[in-house]
């Protein structure tokens, strides 16, 4: 990691940590909480889909499972409303990962293109179950124990827990990227059959990566449920969630560490701001669609790669020149 990129990371973290101190308006801190939740999810999604190239569009299953874990446990265990409920956040992640194991075992049997569609199908199975089953409260949803924190202060603990999730997801992604396991996922992305032929146990690598990625998403869902206090099946199992986090990762830069974070930061805060300002979701759809198409056309690799390429263009050119020289050398040696 170069000095510059390290400085950008530190600055970003400081800015995020200071945000609720500087901007005290509860409405904006709430936007911050939602944005951080999406950043954690996009980063985690990228850790599986970006690394392996298996685009999953059913992440809302994990989000919903996490949310329902929080809601059902806090309600049925008669928990005292308050900070103790934060302990259910990791539980939500754990349950989401466990649920992901059989899902992954089925979905990862199929080829890459079919995988996308089967994750959508499994998502609908969960959504329809949640809407129709009794224990989920059906369409009227579930109300969680009411947390009576002061209104001006209410959002702040959630903000920092969400920031914790973002940091967790980022560090996990970085560790995985450096591990042999991460290298195997990247090899699968480039040529799965070849990786298998070189001894990589592709099935278990994919399944592990998939279940691991669902952990943070499940935690984010649990935190969301606690934050909003009431959940509905159609909002926690939301197809827009699936596509949003994928779009965020693509927008920022698929497979990169910073890309999904940046993509989520831009898109989610933009959406929240639009909703707050215009209360017109149609306009948002149009702007969202147009923005994404522009990105695809002008920087198909995502914002981070686009910027990195500009910044390091000269260095890359030098490197290419060296490589070319060495190639010639290698050729002449032969």
């Amino acid at each position, binding site marked *: 990691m170069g000095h510059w990129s390290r400085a950008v990371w530190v600055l970003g973290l400081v800015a995020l940590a200071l945000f609720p101190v500087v901007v005290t308006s509860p409405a904006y801190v709430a936007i911050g909480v939602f944005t951080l939740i999406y950043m954690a999810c996009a980063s985690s999604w990228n850790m599986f889909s970006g690394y392996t190239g298996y685009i999953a569009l059913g992440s809302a299953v994990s989000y919903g499972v996490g949310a329902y874990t929080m809601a059902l446990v806090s309600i049925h265990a008669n928990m005292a409303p308050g900070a103790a409920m934060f302990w259910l956040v990791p539980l939500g992640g754990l349950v989401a990962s466990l649920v992901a194991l059989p899902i992954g075992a089925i979905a990862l049997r199929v080829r890459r293109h079919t995988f996308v569609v089967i994750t959508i199908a499994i998502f609908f199975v969960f959504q329809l179950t949640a809407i129709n089953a009794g224990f989920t409260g059906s369409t009227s949803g579930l109300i969680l124990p009411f947390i009576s924190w002061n209104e001006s202060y209410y959002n702040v603990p959630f903000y920092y827990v969400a920031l914790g999730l973002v940091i967790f997801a980022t560090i996990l992604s970085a560790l995985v990227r450096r591990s042999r396991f991460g290298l195997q996922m990247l090899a699968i992305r480039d040529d799965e059959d070849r990786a298998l032929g*070189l001894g990589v146990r592709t099935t278990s690598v994919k399944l592990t990566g998939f279940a691991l990625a669902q952990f943070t998403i499940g935690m984010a869902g649990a935190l969301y449920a606690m934050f909003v206090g009431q959940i509905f099946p159609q909002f926690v199992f939301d197809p827009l969630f699936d596509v949003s986090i994928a779009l965020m990762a693509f927008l920022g830069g698929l497979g990169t560490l910073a890309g999904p974070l940046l993509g989520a930061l831009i898109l989610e805060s933009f959406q929240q701001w639009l909703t707050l300002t215009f209360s017109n979701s149609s306009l948002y759809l149009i702007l969202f669609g147009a923005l994404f198409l522009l990105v695809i056309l002008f920087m198909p690799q995502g914002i981070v790669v686009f910027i990195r390429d500009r910044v390091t263009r000269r260095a890359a050119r030098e490197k*290419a020149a060296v490589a070319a020289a060495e190639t010639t050398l290698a050729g002449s040696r032969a």
Partner: protein
Amino acid sequence: MPILSVSGVSRAFGGVQALQDCSLEVAEGSIAGLIGPNGSGKTTLFNVVTGYVRADQGTVRFREKEITGLKPNQVFALGIGRTFQLTRIFERLSVLENMLVATQRREGWLRGLTRSKSSPEEVSTALELLDFVGIAGLAELQAGALSYGQRKLLELAYVLVADPQVILLDEPAGGVNLTLINRIAEKIRALNAQGKTFLIVEHNMEFVMSLCDRVTVMHQGSDLVSGAPEEVRRDPRVLDAYLGGGDDELEEVAGG
């Protein structure tokens, strides 16, 4: 005792009988050649041996142990490495990372998760092998930027990482220049001198005849003739097989 033996293997794809009662033996420490017209089943045989394609019938043995039906990763772990006709490398990884993908110790998946990408010894082994094939200077380059010939060398190098006893090469001399062909032949000889066994599919007759101890000719999914290079060259059935190929071109286009 043959190190690798294929007996009576058949395999059909839809209506096409790609392999028909095919048998083959490769002696330990030898360089065996596999030739035949396009579509005669050479690559399919490779795929069956390395676990990419299941055999409908017949058995594959490695050191007397039956390996029929094992998965590609298991076959690799036993010590049989292979390259592909069209080179298959991990284009978005660096050359060194390509090597490290193949650096597999037998470890649980949890260890893979907690371990760093490579130990210093693994990196130095990888660099040694890259140096052996002559592309160590390109270790940090993204593999997608390699030329076709360099890809062939990289593929050979990362197959060697796991120190396999048998190496299957699918057209190592295909589409590369004469200098490189000679270099590849030289590397094969050097490795063979260290005791590695080779099975090579190749169209370049000169390459096969000069390198191989024994050559098997395949025709319509079966082994037609086996013998020393000169014997095979003189066998009239071999010429017939090549001339009577018929719709070869079509299959070549389809990648057969």
